[in-house]
Each structure stands twice: as C-alpha cells, then as structure tokens.
C-alpha cells in the first residue's frame, strides 16, 4: 500500500510537472552569425531575449555560429526539406551565400511598417531584396571608423580638425607620434580573420579613386598604394597578428586605430574617458565609408514562422534597437531609435558614426552583392593586394594586374553588378585597364 501511495504521488507530480512545462513549452530557434563572441551571446540570452519571452510566452533558443557552419546548416536543411530554425540572423553578405533558403517576408515588412512606430531606412530595406523576394528585414547596422586614444591628441598637426581628417593628415599625425616617442602607434587590423579587406575596398579605394572595382588598376589607385606603403611605416608591426583592435587599444600598443565599431566597442566601454571615435579620413575623392547591414530572415521550412515574426517585431522596435546599441554596439536601422540618446560609452561611438554618416564629403560604399557564394574571393583579392604591395613590398603595377585579372574573372563568372560607389547598373562589373 505504501508503495502504491508513493508511486501515485510520483505519477501526480510528473503529470503536474509535464503540464506546467507544456503550458510554457513554445520555443523557437534563433540562429545567427551575429552576436557570436561569448559576451555578446550571453548578453543576448540574459538581457535581449528574456523580455520577449515574458511578453509573449515564447522561449528563444539563441544559437550563434560562424558563417561557414551557419551556411552549411541552412543549405543542408533546405536540401533535405526538414527545418529546425525559425529565425535567421546574418549579414547582407551571409544571406547572399544561402540563396533560395529564405521565405519571402514582404508581408511581415508591411505589417511592421503599418504599425506606425518605426521607419526603416529605405536603402537598407532595398538591400534586403534578393532573388526577387524580401529575403531579410534590416536588423542592425554597423560601420568602421577610427578610435583614438586621447594621448595621441598632443601630436596632432597644428590646425587639423580630427573630426574631418584627411589621409595625408593621418600620415603626418602618425609620423609625429613616431618621431616623438620612437613607437609606431597606428593600428590597422591585418590578421587572417581581420577586416583588413573592408579598409582597402570600402575606405581606401573610394576615398582615393571614387571607385571600388572599376578603378582597381588606375593612376589614382597607384597613388593610393604608394600612400598605403608610406602609411604602413608607422603601423605597429604586430598588426599582422591582430584580428581586432580592442585589445591593442586597451593595452596601449595602439593610439590611433581603424576597425569595425563592434571590434573596438570593448575598449571604449572599459575606458570611456580615454577614447574618442572619429570619422574615417577623406582622400582626394572624398570620405569613403562602408555601410554594413545585418538582417533577419525566416527560412522556408521554419517550424514556427508566426512566432518568428513576433520576434522580428520585438527586435526592430525602437526601444529594443537602443538596447542592441547599448549591448553590442550595432547601430539602429529605424530612424526613431537613432534620435534616442544612448547612455555611456555608446554615446561616444554614436557621435563618430553620425559624424561619418553625415559628413558633407561622404562617399557611401557597399559590400558587393550578386557575388553569391564567391563573396569570400572578392575579399581575398583586396586583402592579398594589400599584403603583396604594402607588407611584402612587391611591384604595384604587376600586383594590380595579376589581382585585377582575378577580379575581372570573378565578376564575369558571377555576373555581379558594380557595388556603390561604382555605377550599380553595370552588370557584370568590369574593372578597367585589365587585359
């Protein structure tokens, strides 16, 4: 009898427990290439997503992965027809690598726009249109800019406004520091997983040539590479081992750094009184800068697309957008949030981003679309060109010819259109002066 009573109690508890679990049981999977560093993933799980769960009762399983396995999984699940992912987060370029796997969410976009509390940046919405459908809705944006340690200000050449630097002024500044201290305090990330290629194709090329692809090999480009060789004399020699600039800024190896906002954010957060964020420099043709865009998509075979739409609504709310800025340093893509003042160190970055975006001589560059799965080869061409000419000191014209051939082939094979600032109606994009 006693045994029966105990068994009965266990059974009762199991049933109660099971029913409790099932009542809160709805869970969706959010699979993203963004918010991958441990601190960011933790922040997503403990700060960003719980309010969504308490509001809707839907739990979110957040999984972050590098692009390579992320793409492999999405393509694999689509091929097999069995989906386990409800919401996908990725960069514009990531979505290009998984064509055909995303559902058309233009309906979701209309629903969100109809809510009246958020105005998406139009050009970003257009970027989300791939393969004839709305493959993703903009989620957050980032850009690359310069961060300076206030210690560097005393070496700034006289009469120079650091919020409107030119590349020549940057060189003079770095040279001053070297001559005064004997140390090379300029930092550009040049490690294998760094974003060096973005600096080359999105900042140097537009600023010096007004182009990204077409003028790859041109007289302006040759001048630019000669400048880069000069600038490299004042870059810290450890740069080729750095994938991000936050640590070199924090430990003082570098006083002037260029990098993605997310890769310098930790330095500013740790020592907000030591750093200022400034727009990237301007070259002869203007102030070139890239707009980087992350989006949210729903796979065609998502188990629970309705819940995924709810999560998209939550993540694009202006208040959540400000949270994201505070949490991981990615900037809002809805205009209402941009005017909200972020607290603390984010204000410093926001000032720099706004100054860069609002610069009168700004040239907007974008990471080329249409290269599909071969986007990585585009990055490799610019990175290799930099390493060959600047780091290894090889002949400029010969390298530009050799790499230019690869660039021409790449665009010819993929049929991709020229990215801004080149004329976007030319497809395939043909770099000039390449035999």
């Amino acid at each position: 009898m006693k045994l029966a009573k105990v068994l009965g109690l266990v059974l009762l508890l199991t049933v109660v427990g099971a029913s409790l679990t099932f009542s809160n049981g709805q869970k969706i999977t959010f699979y993203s290439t963004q918010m991958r560093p441990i601190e960011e993933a933790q922040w997503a799980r403990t700060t960003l997503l719980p309010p969504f769960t308490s509001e809707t009762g839907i739990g979110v399983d957040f999984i972050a992965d590098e692009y390579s396995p992320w793409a492999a999984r999405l393509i694999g699940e689509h091929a097999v027809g069995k989906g386990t992912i409800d919401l996908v987060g990725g960069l514009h370029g990531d979505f290009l690598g998984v064509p055909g796997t995303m559902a058309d969410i233009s309906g979701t976009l209309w629903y969100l726009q109809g809510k009246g509390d958020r105005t998406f940046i139009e050009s970003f919405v257009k970027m989300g249109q791939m393969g004839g459908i709305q493959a993703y809705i903009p989620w957050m944006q980032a850009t690359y800019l310069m961060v300076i340690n206030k210690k560097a200000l005393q070496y700034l050449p006289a009469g120079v406004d650091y919020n409107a630097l030119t590349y020549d002024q940057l060189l003079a500044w770095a040279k001053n520091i070297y001559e005064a201290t004997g140390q090379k305090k300029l930092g550009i990330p040049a490690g294998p997983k760094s974003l060096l290629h973005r600096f080359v194709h999105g900042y140097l090329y537009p600023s010096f040539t007004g182009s990204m692809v077409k003028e790859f090999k041109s007289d302006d480009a040759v001048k630019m590479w000669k400048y880069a060789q000069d600038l490299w004399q004042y870059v810290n020699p450890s740069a080729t081992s750095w994938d991000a600039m936050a640590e070199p800024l924090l430990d003082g190896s570098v006083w002037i750094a260029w990098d993605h906002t997310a890769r310098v954010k930790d330095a500013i957060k740790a020592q907000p009184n030591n750093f200022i964020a400034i727009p990237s420099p301007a070259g002869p043709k203007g102030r070139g800068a890239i707009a980087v865009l992350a989006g949210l998509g729903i796979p065609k075979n998502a188990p629970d697309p309705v819940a995924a739409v709810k999560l998209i609504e939550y993540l694009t709310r202006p208040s959540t957008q400000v949270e994201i800025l505070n949490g991981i340093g990615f900037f809002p893509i809805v205009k209402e949030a941009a005017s909200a003042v972020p607290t603390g160190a984010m204000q410093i970055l926001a000032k720099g981003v706004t100054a860069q975006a609002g610069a009168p001589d700004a040239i907007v560059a974008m990471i080329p679309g249409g290269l599909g799965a071969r986007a990585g080869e585009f990055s490799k061409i610019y990175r290799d060109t930099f390493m060959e000419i600047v780091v290894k000191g090889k002949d400029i014209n010969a390298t530009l010819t050799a790499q230019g051939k690869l660039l021409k082939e790449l665009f010819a094979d993929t049929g991709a259109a020229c990215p801004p600032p080149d004329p976007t109606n030319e497809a395939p994009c043909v770099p000039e002066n390449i035999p």
Partner: protein
Amino acid sequence: MGFLRRLLRTDTLLPYWLLLPTVVYLIIFFVLPLFQAFSLSFKTDDGQLTLKYFERMVYDVGFMDALKNTFLLAIILVPLQLITALVIALLINTNFRGSRLFLYICAIPLGISDLASGLVWFSIFSEHGYLNSLLYKLGILSQPFHFLSYVHLPWTFGAILAAEHWRATAIVLVVLVAGLQMISKDYLEAAEVMGANKLQRLWYVVLPLLKPSLQAALIIRTIFAFEVFAVVIALAGNLVPVLASQSYWWYALYRNLHIAAAYGVLLMTLSVLVTWGYLRFLRTREEALR
C-alpha cells in the same frame, strides 16, 4: 557445395568479419570523402571535368610560398627530429635509473593537441610573452622584440621550428623506443664478443635491425610534417603560408571548396609519393635479420 561450405565456416571468415566494422567506417569517413575531394577538385559544379581549380591554386599569391614553406619545414624538421628521437631512444634503452619516468616526460607533448602546443609557444614568443619578459629582465632587450611579426620572418620561422620540434618528436621517439626494445640482446652480445665497440655495434647491429621502425617513424612523421597546420596558424597566422592552412582558408574564409579540395589533393599526392619513396629506399633486406 564443398567450396561454399568452406567459405561459410566461421573460423576461416572470422578475421574478415572482425575487420568489417572498421572497413565500413573507413569507407564511409575516409574513402568516400577522398573520392569526393578528387571530384571536387577536378569537376565544376555542373559536372564538367576541368583543370581550372588547379590552375587557380597555382596562380594564388600564397601557393609558391606555401609549397616552399611546407617543404622547408619538412626537410629541416624530419631529420632533426629523427636524430633527436634516436639519441633519446638510445639513452632510454640503456635503462638507467628513472629512464621510464624520463620516457613519460618526453612523451607528454603526445597528449596535447596541435593547437594547444601552438598556443603554448605563442605565449612564449609573443610581444608580451615569456621570452621577451626574460630577455628584458636579463637586460638584453629594452623594448619587446617582435619575434612573430612580418618584419622578422626568419624568427617567426624559427619559432615554428622550435614549437614543432618540441611537439612532434615524441611520436618518433615512441616508435623508436618500441623498435629498440624488440632488438634481441643476443645480437649485441655476439657483436661485443666479436670485438665490436659501442659505435660499431650501433652502426652495424642496432641501426639495420631498427630499419622497420625507422621506416614506420619516418613515414608517419613526414606525412604529418606535410600536413603541419595548427602550430603554424597559432604562431604566424597567414604570415607563413603552408599547404594545409591555404586549404583551410579557401574552405572557411573564401568558401571555394573546389580550390580547397585541390590543395587537399596536392597534399595527398605528396604524402603518397613520399611514402612510396620511403618504402622503396628503406626496404628491409632479409639478410640483416639472419
């Protein structure tokens, strides 16, 4: 009927049944991917045969350097490690007091992954690492020396040599120690009786009898030397390209699986050629054992 019955008798077939799971595993996880790699490197996505991926591989900026570095590392490391391992193995074989413990200590690197070894040596050679701190304390340096930067590439190469030597000698050592223990004491005693001194015994008795182990150790070590990867990436990133790292970057960063497969096929061909070379030129002659 008799033939069939013989075939089905379990004691004849038992070895094959026992091997079957391993063979199936190898076919699924090694042979099939091998064929896939070959077809990836020679066929386009549409299924056309082409050499363009190999052409692209050779045209790549990193290719000649990768080939050069891989060969250079192998040519320097393998003989060096062979000699080091042989010396240590002979020492251990004298069974001095504590030789067992000494063997275990020397074999510690075997238990560590390549990447962990690379990171350990990175913490020695890096700008704020142990070596720089030591040299600074001894007053030899007033500013950190960038061992691992492009301005001091020979030093970077040296650091890789040091790390690889430390990490991979153990496997050669273990094979040689086992081989030495298999040599019967009778041969050595007979040689001593006939008046051979220590060096002559080593050259005329020990080394010939050690040939099978030497062959095995050399094949293993050389193939792994061509595949050197994690240590190079940990210490030098892409400053010192090697074949395996190029294959990896083409797969993970640039997402062109065809070219990554081409590098893989090249690596495999090199390994096969080298193994064939060793088997051919280090053939054990039966006379040595009589």
